[in-house]
């Protein structure tokens, strides 16, 4: 589904991604974790072309991702992206946030797009927020709407960039529950997160990154019980507490 090979990226002199190779099969749920500054968010953003790359290649469904080409627009329609800061459109109502892309990009009628959007609102448990203005919603609700907005384009892959990091602790659960359900439905997903409990339950693979490189690519069971590298052990100790 996704194939990344020998990817290198610099921010000026900083070598943020070092010779990354990674393959993701349909239906897999990858959790990307690692200390901050390890390049996991940057890696995620290269997959839908929000970041350019210096060397190497990325293909999604066999098609090369290159932000400089105009094909990137069509490819992005098939890659849902959920941001840490939600990034809902504040000038639109909830329903219009969800229907904007299907209407303008897929040519759906307003009725068809709204019918689909209502199903998605049901799925994220926010049917009654249909006509509400987005800035009246809590962070957790905004993030669930953002997930519905991404799903509205029916992408085969979803990318999550720390979807719960900007949330108050009591709202983390409701967002993770939605993502968990998507995983159970067989959605292919890559998720950058510090929620290790979620990673252990939901991930089919854990990608542990440090200093721009993939240090471990393993199963959750292996990663949480017997991490191979000293870096991963230190990371787990820090994040899981004592």
């Amino acid at each position: 589904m996704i194939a990344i090979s020998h990817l290198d990226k610099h921010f000026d002199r900083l070598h943020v991604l070092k010779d990354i190779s990674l393959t993701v099969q349909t239906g897999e749920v990858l959790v990307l974790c690692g200390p901050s500054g390890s390049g996991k968010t940057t890696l995620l953003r290269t997959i839908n072309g929000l970041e350019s790359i210096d060397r190497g290649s990325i293909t999604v469904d066999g098609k090369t991702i290159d932000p400089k080409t105009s094909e990137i627009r069509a490819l992005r329609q098939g890659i849902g992206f959920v941001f840490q800061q939600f990034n809902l459109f504040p000038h639109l109502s909830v329903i219009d946030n969800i229907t904007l892309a299907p209407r303008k990009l897929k040519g759906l009628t307003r009725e068809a797009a709204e019918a689909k959007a209502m199903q998605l609102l049901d799925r994220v448990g926010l049917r009654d927020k249909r006509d509400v203005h987005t800035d009246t919603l809590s962070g957790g609700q905004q993030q669930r709407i953002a997930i519905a907005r991404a799903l509205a384009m029916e992408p085969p892959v979803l990318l999550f960039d720390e979807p719960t990091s900007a949330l108050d602790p009591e709202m983390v659960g409701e967002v993770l529950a939605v993502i968990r359900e998507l995983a159970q439905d067989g959605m292919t997903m890559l998720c950058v997160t510090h929620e290790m409990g979620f990673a252990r339950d939901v991930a089919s693979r854990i990608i542990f990154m440090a200093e721009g490189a993939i240090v471990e690519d393993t199963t959750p069971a292996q990663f949480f019980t017997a991490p191979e590298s000293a870096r991963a052990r230190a990371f787990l100790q820090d994040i899981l507490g004592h």
Partner: protein
Amino acid sequence: MTLIEFLSGRYGELLLKGLTVTLQLSGVTLAAGFVIGVLLTLIRLSPFWIVRQAVGLLVDAIRSVPLLVHVIFWYFGAPELLPDGPRMWLYARDVNFICAAIAISIYAGAFISEDLRSGLRSIPKGQTEASLSLGFSGLETFRYVILPQAFRISVPPLLGQAMTITKNTSIALMIGVPELVYQAQRIQDITYEPFLPYASATLVYLAICTVLTLASRAYSRTAVKSRGAQA
């Protein structure tokens, strides 16, 4: 003479004529200034560094020169640069009004473009990224996501510009456009009495600006409360 007596007579008529010219000049310059402001803003979004810099410098230059100097240039200077044909055409018309309108429009356009630009800049980068991620092109992102938000943000400063423009039109009296203050001055020349004509003119400006201020406040309130009602 009371204010009522003063206004109901011939002087009231003169002031009314002046007000008409002031409103005409304000309306024309506000519309033209807005168009100029939008054009300048669009050019400043150009991908070419040199174009952005050139227009930025031009806008700064326009804003740095006093409006009176603009008016004097467009009235005394610019027409002389025209070939005979267009110059004759211009002089056959209300050249004072036209030159004042051009000067104030360009001046206002520069300020409006700054308001629009800061409106555009205040939209967080995440908005563009969210739109691109859905598969929208850069142009579609601008059209559906950035522009509507920037416009909403720009409405209060634009109403502020409308206020400034209305007051600034009084400078046109320097080149003999018979607007409100011009007429007040004329009445003073006749009556040797400055208080009533200038007080009346002042009240008129105050009234116009109050309306615009109230409109701006009302907009800010409704914008906060019910932006979700439309989309």
